[in-house]
């Protein structure tokens, strides 16, 4: 006779990993996140233009790393969908009740979901960012951002470029955690993805409209996307609303806050 034992973190991790890997949409979404990020980044690099003779680094203020990583604006939406679908789907189908019956420690379930999700997004993010940097390295010198004009070629051996690349991978993982926390709190995946994308995309639009106002800079400092993407900057660091790692810290605080909110909701409400 086998003794019943309560599910520990490794068991729950294993269960969550099984759930994630046996859903076809997981692979499509991870693939789409990487492919769209690279495609938009390459497109942005190809569309970059500066008038002949006005391409000097001091004139354009262009940031090759940031241009190459433009695709993150779109890629993060796919990552958020993956995160929101994971927990939102359980509420939509009623699977959450099975999950919580099998593993009654609810916070452990959330932690396991977060861990599995982070792993997948980090892998996809590595491909996305690596591909984007490669595309930028190939395309940008032909678009005027060449060494002759005073731009260092994109290289992961450069401290700032490495920070931008590694930071962007972490950024994507934090976006996934933010979406996971918010969806756990809201439960309905459609509404949750609306809230998440609203949080990401609307802050910069609002701060654009009040540009020149002291409020604009404050908004740029607290907005999850604008602050988080400060990590992509390799030039003009002084004019950034926040230092790169501080900015990523703001996003981490948002993600942590969302997870706390989601954890409380999971713990205190009936599923």
């Amino acid at each position, binding site marked *: 006779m086998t003794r019943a034992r309560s599910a520990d973190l490794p068991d729950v991790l294993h269960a969550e990993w099984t759930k994630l890997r046996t859903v076809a949409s997981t692979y499509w979404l991870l693939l789409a996140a990487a492919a769209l990020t690279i495609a938009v980044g390459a497109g942005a690099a190809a*569309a970059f233009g500066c008038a002949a003779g006005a391409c000097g680094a001091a004139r354009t203020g262009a940031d090759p790393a940031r241009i190459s990583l433009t695709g993150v604006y779109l890629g993060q939406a*796919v990552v958020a969908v993956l995160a929101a*679908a994971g927990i*939102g789907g359980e509420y939509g189908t009623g699977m959450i009740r099975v999950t919580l019956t099998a593993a009654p420690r609810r916070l452990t379930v959330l932690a396991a979901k977060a861990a599995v999700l982070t792993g997948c997004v980090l892998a996809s993010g590595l491909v996305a960012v690596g591909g984007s940097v490669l595309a930028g390295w190939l395309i940008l010198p032909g678009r005027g951002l060449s060494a002759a004009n005073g731009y260092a070629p994109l290289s992961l051996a450069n401290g700032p470029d490495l920070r931008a690349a590694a930071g962007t991978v972490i950024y994507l993982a934090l976006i996934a955690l933010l979406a996971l926390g918010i969806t756990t709190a809201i439960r309905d995946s459609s509404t949750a993805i*609306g809230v998440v994308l*609203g949080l990401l995309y*609307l802050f910069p639009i609002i701060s654009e*409209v009040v540009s020149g106002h002291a409020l604009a800079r404050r908004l740029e400092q607290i907005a999850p996307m604008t602050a988080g993407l400060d990590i992509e900057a390799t030039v003009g660091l002084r004019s950034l609303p926040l230092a790169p790692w501080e900015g990523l810290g703001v996003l981490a605080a948002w993600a942590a806050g969302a997870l706390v909110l989601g954890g409380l909701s999971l713990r205190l409400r009936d599923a």
Partner: protein
Amino acid sequence: MTAIAPYRSPVTPGRDGFAQLLRAEWTKFRTVRGWVVGILVAVLLTVGIGLTGSSGCGFNSNGTGACPAAPTGPGGAAVTDRFYFVHQPLTGDGTVTARVTSLTGVYSPSGYTGAPQTGPGALKGYRSGVQPWAKAGIMIKASTGQGTAYAALLVTGANGVRMQDDYTGDIAGLPGPVSAAAPRWLRLVRSGNSVSGYDSLNGTRWSLVGTVTLSGLPRTAQAGPFTASPSSMVLTQSLGTVATTGAAPTIATAAFDHVALSGAGGAWTGTSVGGGAARPGGGNANVNGPGNAAEPFNGGFRPSGTAGFTVRGSGDIAPNVPEAADGSGTSPTQVLDIGTFLGLIAMVVVGASFITAEYRRGLIRTTLTAAPHRTRVLAAKALVIAAVTFAAGLAATGVTLLLDVARAGSAIPPLTALTEVRMIVGTAALLAVASVLALALGVLARRGIAAVSAAIVVIVLPFLLAYIPGSLSTGAQDWLLRIFPAAGFAVSQAFPAYHQVVAPYQPNMGYFPLAPWVGFLVLCAWAAVAFAAAAYRLGRRDA
């Protein structure tokens, strides 16, 4: 043996028309509390943002708190009208002729840096260089008051000879810059209310540039040479934003000779129309004597040789563009748009859920059993969600815009009633079409999360990417707002863009690459294609 009659329900069969379908869908909508609350939240968010983010001078990058109203032109629209005018009365029909032999200028490359606006130090840090739309030429103007009717033939810094009238009219004449070696002869002929402009390279062979009709030109008008030079604008890019940090008045100096006015015998008078260029510190300089060095931006004139003048002027004669350095006020489009974005996301969520909830709960099978004509079901759903979001959107955009206009007062240049109606109704229609697009995506994807994220990505993300400087070239950014549904926001544009006024015509400033209704049609085309695809898929797939 008796045959058993089949059971017949005593209830008279219900009618099964489109009206019943509409009623069924409306009942479904209004009985889901989350959707009704979602729409109400959308309205409150839109209006709430409108209340907190009021248009006003405070948003202007060079705002000073003071908000002088721009003068209005003959058409009632706000205009910029500041320049130096050397004039004599011209009674009845007549001709004014002049030759321009040079147009030079000074500007501040770093923008306004706090240099004094008066006294010998006023032009500290200035370099020589003429603005592309600096203007020197001849003009027939109703009076020297701001905003009065005029016709002018002029040479520009970089845009050749132009015939301009009543602030918005602009006809190209001879190309190329003016110099002593390549002077330009200019002639204006008044005949009743119409004024014709002729230009020439040698004063003998004249070619017609254009003829304009001015209403409100009195019998005795003022005519003579003038000079204006619009304020320079320095666009600075910081990450994620383009800001117009440096705007500074500039000065142009033009040399005229062979100045002739039919029937004239009096003395020439110099007037600084509008009191010179706007000063970044606020307020305009006082009118001073000709060429007063203490008030350099007032302009002045000095006779040179026979029938010749050197005229120095600052300012612009153009439509008022709020974002231009010489413009005043702000565009209410910005406040309306951010409110609309908030509302949009809520309405997209409701629009997609209106169908995906049926798939999730299995209600779609009941719906399609009751009404087997699937396209009609989809049409009824689309009509209901469009009507609801349009009505809610109308309330939200109407209150937002009217409150903003009322609160901002003179900070918003006058909007015609037609423009206000177009902005309010058009933006409400944008919300309705967006929710139909989300509904159609919901049919195609059957999952709310996919439909909502797809709708947000195609509507909101292009708008966002369209003004991230350094990421995309301006041309690519414009194309984003031409081909994606985000183009629909063009319907909220308050003021037109003018090629003859230099300003940051960007979506975040309230300017779009497509005309208002064209942009709206782009959104409609997306919704129509999505709706057709949804109708096809709904009919072909098992529910």
